[in-house]
């Protein structure tokens, strides 16, 4: 059973592409083999920065032969009086068979001439010579390049090809202008540890041959090696390695022959915030930081997965130590320079930073954040020291943007503000709020935990939303350059998580009223903003809280102004109603009342009763009743109204509705039932009003007309 090896030698591939390319092969090659009618015992995928390889074991030496049946002309035209005609001769000739080979078989459309052909399977060497170049050129990736004078596109230049079937070279070629690569058994080992070419004797010797040339071709093995070496190295210096999984994946594809090298730096650099030190190590140098056992405190060590000679570890460590020293000196320089003046003194410089051309500088944004935060504080009944902290945090929340450290490490915005606020003697609540107001930074990220951080974060996002919407820059499709969807989602999530009793309608009204850079009319702007928020609420209820689609519609109303207003004026209530509906659907309480309330709601839509009216005595005339069921319905509604007394206790409401359900169903069905659409308009109106009152009570919770019947 032959084995096939393909190795594509390249200049150093981007780390991510190594994984992406192997994954493409993983999903494509088995299918390609199936299409070629080939089986295999195992397919192994290998890759390093300088090569992508696949080893297919246990292939047949050729495709199986295949029988093919070809249908020819109808028997009537192929044979006349038992003699073959020209049609038969032509068919036989075209198929390359003698006339004897023609058979006549019945089909649904009568008798036809057939020929049974045997197609010889092709040798895999043949097939692969033809097909394998497309395995390579068919790979996709970001930012592919051309090189030299060729038209080939690949992640980085291809430099050699190895293709072997067992111990035989399989000739394959990739050619474009003066670029031309022909397969051989010559591979290259480690760039500096094995500078001479290495000859692979047979396909299955690939892994061991490359290992002898200082290349570990198996990414999974390299990753395991790196992780265990890095952890062991951290142990040796008495700490624990911080192994970020993304970094580990990347580093795995930056080296062919990994060995962990430990370096150290001056402990004085640990005075720099650990976020800075970690960012320097992980994002800039691809080092693994080391922390103390049992705490998150960093130790003055780093570990790098070297691609060099393990015997030269000292030289390599010394070189890396110089680099991290220079980087950390930079960091320390920024940290010290930034703290020479209090955080507040950076405010004037924020005037030079543009938030958005038409909306002015970040300095003026900060003032707007302060104004919105104070409206929020009023709504939330926040007074005293907390309210002072909110104003202070709003003022300082962007000041770190013009510090040198954040200029250098934009990802540390907020984090540095918090540190600098603390060293400037700002209250702790203010310091914490400065970093918290950026939370959540993305889907699934942590939310602000303090009320000051929550309020400033909400105010910042509300300002951005109203400001950008006001310019008519409303997100559409996938274009959302100001991340407004994320901002609105964060507002709803923060409000829900912290149970903030906000009235978003009032807030938006107030902010829009004070905005002076509007390219939309205030009415249009408010309408668009509210729709946008409703979409966020809808998505969050459905996707994050897994509320059924129809139940979400039932609480938000379908094009129902009353529900829209209500949802945004009380975000907590809309969340609670939706979860409650889902709960009663799940426990069966919903189905007990569904039939009656839904039917009443749909019929009541034909009347014109004010949806706010809950008192049956105000709109129903008992003198018009013709049947007992009407009277019973009326009594039940009075009972319901008394029980609820205008309180929005949803559990109690559902309980009361389920008690009245049997009574209401007698109104609809059975011998005592009535026809709502009576010819007498007064009677009809009276009956619609009975239904309307029931619907209105249901509406306190949701629009039952929007709830779909569920099979129980």
């Amino acid at each position, binding site marked *: 059973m032959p084995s096939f090896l393909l190795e594509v030698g390249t200049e*150093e*591939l981007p780390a991510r592409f190594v994984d992406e390319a192997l994954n493409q092969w993983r999903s494509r090659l088995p299918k390609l083999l199936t299409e070629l009618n080939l089986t295999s015992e195992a397919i192994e995928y290998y890759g390093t920065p300088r090569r992508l390889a696949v080893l297919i074991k246990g292939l047949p030496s050729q495709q199986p032969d295949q029988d093919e049946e070809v249908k020819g002309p109808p028997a009537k035209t192929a044979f006349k009086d038992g003699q073959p005609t020209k049609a038969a001769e032509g068919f036989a000739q075209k198929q390359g068979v003698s006339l004897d080979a023609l058979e006549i078989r019945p089909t649904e459309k009568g008798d036809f001439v057939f020929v049974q052909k045997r197609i010889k399977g092709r040798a895999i060497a043949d097939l692969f010579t033809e097909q394998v170049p497309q395995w390579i050129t068919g790979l996709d990736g970001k930012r592919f*390049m051309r090189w030299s004078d060729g038209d080939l596109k690949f992640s*980085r230049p291809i*430099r050699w090809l190895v293709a072997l079937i067992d111990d035989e070279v399989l000739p394959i070629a990739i050619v474009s202008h003066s670029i031309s690569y022909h397969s051989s058994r010559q591979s290259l080992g480690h760039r500096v540890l094995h500078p001479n070419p290495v000859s692979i004797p047979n396909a299955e010797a690939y892994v061991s041959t490359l290992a002898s040339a200082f290349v570990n071709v198996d990414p999974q093995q390299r990753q395991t090696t790196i992780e265990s070496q890095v952890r062991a190295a951290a142990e040796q210096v008495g700490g624990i390695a911080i192994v970020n999984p993304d970094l580990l994946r990347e580093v795995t594809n930056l080296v062919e022959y990994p060995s962990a090298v430990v370096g150290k730096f001056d402990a004085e650099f640990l005075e720099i915030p650990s976020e800075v030190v970690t960012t320097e190590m992980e994002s800039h140098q691809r080092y693994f930081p080391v922390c103390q056992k049992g705490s998150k405190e960093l130790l003055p060590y780093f570990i790098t997965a*070297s691609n060099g000679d393990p015997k*030269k570890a000292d030289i390599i460590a010394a070189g890396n130590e110089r680099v991290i020293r220079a980087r950390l000196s930079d960091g320390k320089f920024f940290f010290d320079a930034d703290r020479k003046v209090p955080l507040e003194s950076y405010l004037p410089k924020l005037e030079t930073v543009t938030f958005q051309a038409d909306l002015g500088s970040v300095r003026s944004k900060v003032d707007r954040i302060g104004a919105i935060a104070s409206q929020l504080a009023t709504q939330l009944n926040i007074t005293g020291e907390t309210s002072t902290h909110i104003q202070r945090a709003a003022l300082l929340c962007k000041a770190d943007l013009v510090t040198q450290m954040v200029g250098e490490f934009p990802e540390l915005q907020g984090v540095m503000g918090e540190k600098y606020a603390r060293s400037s003697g700002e209250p702790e609540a203010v310091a914490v709020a400065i970093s918290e107001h950026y939370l959540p930074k993305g889907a699934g990220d942590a939310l602000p935990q303090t009320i000051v951080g929550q309020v400033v974060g909400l105010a910042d996002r509300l300002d951005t939303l109203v400001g950008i919407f006001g310019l008519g820059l409303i997100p559409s499709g996938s274009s959302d350059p100001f991340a407004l969807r994320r901002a609105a989602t964060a507002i709803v999530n923060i409000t829900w998580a912290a149970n903030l009793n906000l009235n978003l309608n009032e807030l938006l009204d107030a902010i829009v009223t004070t905005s002076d850079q509007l390219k939309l009319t205030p009415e249009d702007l408010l309408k668009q903003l509210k729709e946008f928020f409703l979409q966020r609420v809808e998505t969050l209820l459905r996707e994050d809280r897994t509320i059924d689609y129809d139940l979400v519609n039932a609480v938000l109303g379908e094009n129902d102004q009353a529900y829209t207003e209500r949802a945004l004026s009380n975000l907590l209530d809309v969340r609670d109603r939706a979860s409650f509906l889902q709960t009663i659907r799940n426990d069966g309480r919903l189905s007990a009342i569904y039939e009656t309330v839904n039917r009443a709601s749909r019929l009541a839509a034909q009347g014109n009763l004010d949806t706010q009216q809950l008192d049956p005595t105000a709109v129903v005339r008992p003198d018009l009743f013709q049947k007992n069921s009407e009277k019973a319905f009326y009594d039940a509604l009075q009972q319901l109204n008394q029980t609820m007394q205008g309180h929005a206790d949803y559990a109690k409401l559902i309980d009361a509705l389920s008690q009245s359900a049997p009574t209401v169903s007698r109104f609809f069905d059975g011998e005592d039932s009535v026809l709502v659409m009576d010819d007498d308009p007064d009677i009809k109106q009276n009956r619609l009003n009975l239904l309307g009152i029931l619907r209105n009570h249901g509406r306190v919770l949701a629009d039952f007309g929007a709830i779909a019947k569920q099979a129980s």
Partner: protein
Amino acid sequence: MNFQSVISTLNQFWSNPSELGGANCGCLILQPYDTEKGAGTKSPHTFLRAIGPEPWSVAYVEPCRRPGDGRYGENPNRVQHYYQYQVLIKPSPDNIQDIYLESLKTLGIRPEDHDIRFVEDNWEDAAVGAWGVGWEVWLDGMEVTQFTYFQQCGGLDCRPVSIEITYGLERLTMYLQGVNSIFDIQWNDELTYGDVFLQGEIESSTYNFEASNPELLFTLFKLYEQEAQQLMQKELVLPAYDHVLKCSHTFNLLDARGVISVTERARYIGRVRNLARQVAQLYLKQREAAGFPLLKGKIASIS
């Protein structure tokens, strides 16, 4: 090895790499171009020569000005004026990485003693409509060189593709000399980098951040732009390109002064890019009209 020896060693190496174990791709050794620019790439030796089918191999030192990087001479690793050693070879040779490693050997860096890696780093200079893909070369964790395969220049597809190698001369020399500040680099055996450049660094930082006159700079930008346009109408490629470089540097000065807002920024970059695009096209047209003289009998193929 002092700073000036590093430069002369690289000049020596690239003028004939094959003598030193590299391949046969001897470079023309040129001198710096005399207009301020942010990177060696913007020298016409690279920017214009990377365009079109004519082969080209060049190496030169190029001073770079990045006004926003000034630190008043207080930061040991960052300055607003420094030097790059720039190599450009078209078409890119197959063994360019090996040749490059040979060049490190001539500087006394034995690759087998170190952890050398080619780490993905793509390059784009939106202001001149140029981009390419390549790596930073890490020497024991230190970025010492930038490799770029040019894909577009002035908005034109590069065919054939050039390889650009940019050595960070100060960084490399700091490593070789074991010093921790740019200003401590021995330029020759007597004078340091700081002796020559520290005062200028302080003064230029003051100019870039505090003393420049934004009104004047805005006016200059406009004038340089107009001049570039009128020169292009006369098909004077190099003088036009000089003024594109002046626009680009004036923009960098305005940017360092903090007087360009985010949206204005994109607009200014767009204006410089437009000019650079036009110059690039004009240059290609001019070379084509001249029959691509450097092809020397090879068949021109531009698609």
